[in-house]
């Protein structure tokens, strides 16, 4: 009997407390309708006060990049708050440099809307949409990298620049999370988005994507990314990648040759061993079609006794150093692990590239 009473009393007290909190939340956390002004009147929004800026922007179809889903643990959802955001919170300071704090940058998931607020977001972000799509096909290109193609349903077309990325929504035990993947399909394929996904052991996003089968529905937002390809055909394009950092450069190269068939372009790609090499045949075929395209793959590990390899050997920045001559106008896109990026940036600087012409995706 005492057990039943104890359980009853305990449950009753907890319920009473919960009800009290719920009522208090209704009454106290109610700020009425607040106005969110984006980019000085470009897109005024009226939203319910009391929610975070990120969720208010999401419900109004303005998709700020965010990988953690608003928990304040990724630091991607930075927006400039000009007025009405309150002081910077201790939960934000780990993700903001002193310079960013001075310029008014905040994490949208931590800013609560309590009054009218004025914010500024990059123009690109206003074009970001949420896409529903289904898997059109998957292909294993190496032992751990899969090429996954999505057929877009709503909206049916995507317009992106080469080098941009999308954020794929993946389910996880604590609600959906977003993972960023570069678009590897060229910009003229408007009804499809192709990604290269390397399986990370225990990775939430890559495991989800690797287990997708043809016809499975997916949701993603995009396109994101600030890279702008130089429009001057006299400028050479240098692409340097390593590991699985191929997707953005495949997009750049195919988009580039559909527009400027004779433009000079160099692709350098570094792998560990022969089993990590992918897309080599495709690029060699492209190089036969466009003599101005030069492709070099390099293996960093010694070639094994059973393996066949007639390409470069050693780290990829050595190949870059060997094949490029100094003093040509170039723009470079690098994609790979940080040590590779650092080594290649150093080599490119020696070849006379200005820092603003070197763009990279570090991961």
């Amino acid at each position: 009997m005492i057990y039943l009473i104890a359980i009853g009393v305990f449950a009753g007290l907890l319920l009473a407390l919960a009800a009290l909190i719920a009522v208090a939340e209704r009454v106290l956390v109610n700020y009425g309708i607040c106005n969110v002004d984006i980019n000085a009147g470009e897109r005024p929004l009226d939203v319910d006060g009391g929610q975070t800026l990120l969720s208010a922007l999401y419900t109004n179809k303005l998709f700020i990049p965010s990988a953690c889903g608003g928990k304040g643990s990724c630091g991607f959802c930075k927006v400039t708050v000009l007025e009405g955001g309150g002081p910077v919170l201790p939960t934000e300071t780990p993700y903001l440099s002193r310079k960013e704090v001075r310029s008014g940058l905040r994490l949208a998931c931590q800013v609560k809307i309590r009054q009218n607020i004025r914010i500024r977001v990059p123009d690109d972000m206003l074009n970001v949409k949420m896409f529903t799509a289904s898997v059109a096909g998957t292909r294993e290109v190496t032992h751990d990298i899969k090429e996954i193609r999505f057929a877009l349903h709503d909206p049916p077309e995507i317009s992106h620049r080469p080098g941009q990325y999308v954020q794929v929504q993946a389910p996880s035990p604590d609600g959906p999370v977003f993972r960023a993947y570069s678009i590897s399909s060229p910009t003229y394929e408007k009804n499809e988005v192709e990604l290269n996904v390397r399986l990370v052991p225990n990775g939430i996003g890559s495991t989800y994507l690797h287990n997708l089968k043809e016809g499975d529905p997916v949701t993603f937002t995009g396109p994101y990314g600030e890279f702008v390809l130089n429009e001057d055909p006299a400028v050479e394009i240098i692409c340097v990648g390593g590991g699985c950092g191929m997707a953005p450069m495949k997009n750049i190269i195919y988009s580039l040759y559909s527009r400027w068939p004779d433009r000079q372009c160099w692709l350098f790609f570094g792998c560990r061993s022969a089993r990590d090499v992918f897309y080599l045949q495709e690029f060699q075929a492209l190089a036969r079609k466009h003599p101005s395209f030069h492709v070099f793959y390099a293996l960093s590990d010694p070639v094994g006794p059973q393996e066949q390899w007639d390409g470069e050997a050693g780290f990829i920045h050595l190949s870059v150093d060997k094949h490029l001559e100094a003093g040509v106008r170039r723009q470079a896109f690098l994609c790979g692990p940080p040590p590779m990026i650092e080594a290649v940036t150093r080599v490119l600087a020696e070849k006379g590239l200005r820092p603003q012409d070197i763009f990279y995706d570090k991961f």
Partner: protein
Amino acid sequence: MSETSAFIIIVAAIFTNNILLSNFLGMCSFLVCSRQIGTALGLGAAVIFVMTCTTVLNYGIYYGVLVKDAPLCSADLTFLAFIIFIAVIAAFVQFVEMFVERFSPKLYYALGIFLPLITVNCAILGAALFMIIRKYSFWQSLGYGFGAGVGWALAILLIAGLRKKMGYSRVPKPFQGVSIAMIITGVMAMTFMGFAGMVSIQ
């Protein structure tokens, strides 16, 4: 039930039976948030408020529901005291957070992350448990809750002042940071023993 007046209990809870310096409860936030006088003051004020209110609330629940032959439930449920007290403290802190956020955003930003931290401050639960062990009446509980809060706030203010002053002294490397703060806390506890003859509560 002891006969001590509520006023005496307040004084005793601040000086002779300081919850932090004689019982060493609430040490974690005491050590972490005592680097600046401003934050120490904010946290101290929040602790005074929350401790006073939760002690009273828990008094009501304990003697209204949990004890044997209580007005609302005749069974002896005192074994539930711990978990119920924790739940009440957590809910109350949530409520205070919402209230402060709504009516005093300035204070909300000043307290920032400290307000939720109070939920896990063991001094708050400690005060509620002492109230039971020492069999205080309602007014004595109110006095004790308030006094213990003030005592905690006083202790954190004192150590914040000391740590600030210590910025000018050369502390040997192995003692820098938390270790010297622990030593100071010990010295402070010893000095507070000087109040011991003044009044005493059980």
